[in-house]
C-alpha cells in the first residue's frame, strides 16, 4: 500500500499516481541515490550542436574523439567529486545549464549563456577588457589556435548582461588554470575539430554553477518555467499512519458526493411538485419556435429531423414530445428523418406516445417516418433536392413513399413549410443550415441540448434559425406554451436540485482548499 504524500490516500502497490489527487507517487526506497559525478555532463550533451551531414568523419578520428571525450569526462568527474555536491537535483543541475539549450533555441545565441572558454576568458580578462562575453560561435575558431596562443575574444562595446559570478571569480586571476585538462584535450583535437563538435563539451566549466542570466522579456519567463518543471521534484514524505476515522472519511467522501447527487435527482420526483412552475418565464428563442409552428397553415408539411441518440433523450425527448403534440394539434403533416441510425426508433417512440392523444391522426396520412439516411452532408443535399429520390421507402411499413398521403405535393425541400432540427450535438444544426437553410427558402428552427447550445446560438442570433429550444428548461417552457405540462416540467425539480448540489459541492471544495492553503502557510 502506498500513501499519497499530498493527501494521504492509500493507493495500491505499484501505483504511479494518486487515485485521489493525481500526485505522482514515488516511494522513498525507489529513489536512487544519484551519484554526484553523473549529473554534470548532461546539460553539456544537450548543448551539442547538430551534426554536420556534409562533412564525413575520417577513419580513425572516431576513436580519437572517443578518447578525448573520455578524458574530458574523467577530468569533469575529478572536479565534481572534489567539491561537495548536494543530493538535491535542483542544486546539482544549475539553472543556467538547464536553461541554456532552451534559450539558445528560442532566441538564437545568447552571449551570457554560452560558457566561457577556460584559458581564453582568463587571458582576455587579465588584459583588462572588462567582463568577458564569449559566444558559442567564436569558440571553435579559438580552439583551432594553439592553446598557448589563444585568440583574444572580442568583447562587445556595450555589455548587455552582467558577467556571471564564475566569470567574476576568474577575473580575479586563478592560478589553477593549468590544472584543467581542457588544453591537453585541445591538442588531441587538433585537426579534427570539425569531425565532431566536441569543443563546447570539453570547454564547459565544471566547477561553480553559472548564475541565471538576466534576460528581460517573456522568453525568460518561459525559461524560468521550464527550469521549475525540470528542477523541482515532488516532495516525498513518510506517510503518517492515519486514524480509523480519517480513513473512513476518505473512503466515504466520494460516496457521499454520489449519494447526494442521487438523492437530489430522485427526491423531487418522489415528493412531487414542491415548486410552482406556473410563473416560469418563456424565453424569446423558445417562443420563436412556437410562433413558427403557429404561423403554418393547416395541412402544411413539416420535417422533423431526429439527430440525437438515446444518450441525450433526457433533454430532447420532452422537446420532441411537446413539438409533436403541437404539430398534431395544429393539423400539420409530419415527416421525420434522421442522420443517425438510432434516430428512426426514437421518432417512432415519440409518435407512439403522442398519437393516442390525437385520435384523428393516422400513420401515412398525417405523419410518416422516413427512417435513417446515411451520408451526412451529401445525404442532406441529395434529400433537399429530391426527397422521394433520396428516400424510397418508409421506416415502418417499407412501402414506396409515393403511396403515402403525408408526402403529397412534396417534391423538393421547398415544399416543406418548416424544418425542426432536434440535435444532440452542434454539428447537425450546422449541416442543416449549410446544406439546406442557406440554399433553399425554407424555415428552420432547432431544439438542442444545453451543452450544444453555445455553439448553436450564433445561428439563432444571425437569423439562420427562427427559434431555439435549449435543454430541459426549454422543453418545459414549450410544454407550458402549448398548455400540456409533461416530463419537461416534471423534471425541472430534479434538475434544479442537482444543480444546487453541484454548486454547493464546488463551493465546499474551494472552501476546503482555502482552509488547507491557510494551514500550510501558517
Amino acid at each position: 500500500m502506498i500513501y499519497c504524500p499530498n493527501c494521504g490516500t492509500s493507493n495500491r502497490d505499484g501505483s504511479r499516481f494518486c487515485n485521489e489527487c493525481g500526485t505522482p507517487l514515488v516511494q522513498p526506497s525507489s529513489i536512487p541515490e544519484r551519484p554526484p559525478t553523473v549529473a554534470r555532463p548532461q546539460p553539456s550533451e544537450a548543448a551539442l550542436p547538430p551534426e554536420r551531414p556534409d562533412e564525413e568523419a575520417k577513419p580513425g578520428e572516431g576513436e580519437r574523439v572517443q578518447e578525448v571525450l573520455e578524458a574530458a569526462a574523467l577530468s569533469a568527474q575529478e572536479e565534481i567529486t572534489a567539491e561537495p555536491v548536494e543530493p538535491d537535483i535542483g542544486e546539482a543541475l544549475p539553472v543556467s545549464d538547464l536553461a541554456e539549450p532552451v534559450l539558445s533555441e528560442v532566441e538564437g545565441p545568447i552571449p551570457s549563456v554560452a560558457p566561457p572558454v577556460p584559458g581564453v576568458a582568463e587571458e582576455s580578462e587579465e588584459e583588462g577588457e572588462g567582463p568577458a562575453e564569449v559566444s558559442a560561435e567564436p569558440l571553435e575558431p579559438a580552439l583551432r589556435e594553439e592553446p598557448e596562443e589563444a585568440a583574444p575574444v572580442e568583447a562587445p562595446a556595450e555589455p548587455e548582461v552582467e558577467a556571471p559570478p564564475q566569470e567574476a571569480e576568474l577575473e580575479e586571476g586563478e592560478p589553477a588554470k593549468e590544472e584543467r585538462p581542457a588544453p591537453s584535450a585541445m591538442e588531441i583535437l587538433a585537426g579534427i575539430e570539425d569531425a565532431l563538435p566536441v569543443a563546447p563539451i570539453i570547454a564547459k566549466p565544471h566547477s561553480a554553477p553559472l548564475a541565471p542570466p538576466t534576460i528581460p522579456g517573456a522568453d525568460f519567463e518561459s525559461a524560468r518555467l521550464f527550469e521549475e518543471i525540470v528542477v523541482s521534484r515532488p516532495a516525498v514524505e513518510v506517510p503518517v499512519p492515519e486514524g480509523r476515522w480519517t480513513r473512513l472519511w476518505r473512503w466515504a467522501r466520494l460516496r457521499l458526493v454520489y449519494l447526494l447527487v442521487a438523492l437530489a435527482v430522485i427526491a423531487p420526483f418522489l415528493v412531487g411538485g414542491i415548486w410552482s412552475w406556473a410563473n416560469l418565464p418563456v424565453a424569446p428563442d423558445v417562443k420563436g419556435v412556437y410562433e413558427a409552428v403557429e404561423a403554418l397553415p393547416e395541412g402544411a408539411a413539416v420535417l422533423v429531423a431526429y439527430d440525437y441518440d438515446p444518450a441525450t433523450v433526457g433533454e430532447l425527448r420532452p422537446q420532441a414530445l411537446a413539438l409533436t403534440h403541437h404539430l398534431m394539434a395544429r393539423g400539420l403533416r409530419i415527416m421525420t428523418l434522421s442522420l443517425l441510425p438510432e434516430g428512426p426508433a426514437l421518432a417512432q417512440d415519440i409518435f407512439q406516445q403522442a398519437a393516442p392523444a390525437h385520435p384523428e391522426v393516422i400513420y401515412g396520412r398525417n405523419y410518416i417516418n422516413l427512417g435513417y439516411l446515411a451520408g451526412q452532408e451529401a445525404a442532406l443535399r441529395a434529400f433537399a433536392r429530391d426527397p422521394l429520390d433520396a428516400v424510397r421507402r418508409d421506416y415502418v411499413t417499407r412501402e414506396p413513399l409515393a403511396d403515402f398521403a403525408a408526402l403529397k405535393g412534396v417534391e423538393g425541400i421547398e415544399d416543406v413549410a418548416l424544418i425542426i432540427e432536434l440535435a444532440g450535438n452542434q454539428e447537425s444544426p450546422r449541416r442543416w443550415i449549410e446544406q439546406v437553410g442557406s440554399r433553399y427558402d425554407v424555415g428552420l428552427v432547432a431544439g438542442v441540448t444545453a451543452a450544444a447550445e453555445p455553439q448553436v446560438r450564433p445561428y439563432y442570433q444571425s437569423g439562420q434559425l427562427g427559434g431555439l429550444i435549449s435543454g430541459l428548461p426549454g422543453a418545459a417552457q414549450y410544454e407550458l406554451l402549448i398548455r400540456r405540462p409533461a416530463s419537461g416540467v416534471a423534471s425541472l425539480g430534479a434538475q434544479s436540485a442537482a444543480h444546487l448540489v453541484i454548486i454547493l459541492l464546488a463551493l465546499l471544495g474551494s472552501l476546503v482548499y482555502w482552509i488547507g492553503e491557510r494551514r500550510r502557510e501558517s
Partner: protein
Amino acid sequence: VKRIASAAITKVIPTAIAIIAGLLVLADFFLENLYLDSLGQTLVRWTVIMGAFALLLGLLNILAVHGQRIWRRQRGWPYSIVLLVTVVVVLVAGVYGPQSPSMDWVFTHVQHPLQATFFSLLAFFIASAAYRVFRARTLESTLLLITGLIVLLGQAPLSQLLWDRLPLIKDWILAIPSTAGARGILLGAALGIVTTGLRVILGLDRQYSE
C-alpha cells in the same frame, strides 16, 4: 512505361477525378444550370451510396480486427468475443428489418438503456469534479468558477425563486461573451474547411492517392 503507367494509375487519375468532381459540385452549388444540376445530383447520390458501403466496410474491419485478436489471444480477447457475439445477435435480429419485433427489443431493452445510463453517469462525475477540481486557486480559476456557478444556477428554474435577475445574467453570459467565443471558433473552422476544400480541388491534398 511501366513507371509512367503506375504513376498515372496511382496519382494522376485519382487526382484528376477528385479535381473534376470537386469543381463540378462546387459549380453546381453556385450556378443554376440544368446539366450541372443533374451532374451534381448524380455525384452526390454516389457519395451517399459510398457512405453506406463505408458502414459495411467498417463492420468488416471490426470483425477482422477482433477476430485476429481472439486468434492471437491478445490482451482483452474475451471482450472481443463479447463484441463478435453482439454483432451476430444484432445482425440476426435485424434480418427482418429495423422495425421487426426482435430489433425493436434489442433497441428498447439493450441499446437505449445502456446509452442513456452511460450519459447519465456524467452527473456523478461532474459533481465529483466540482468538489475536487473546480476550485478558486488563481484569479482566472476564480472567474471561471463564478461564471460557471452563475450559468449553472441560471439554467435551473430554481434561480427564479432565489433572485429574479439571475436568469438575466445567465442569458447575458450565454448571449454575449459565450456566443462571441463560439462565433470565433465557428468562423475559424469555416475558414479551415474552405482552405481544405481548395487544397483538394487544386490537387495539393492528395490523401486518396498517397
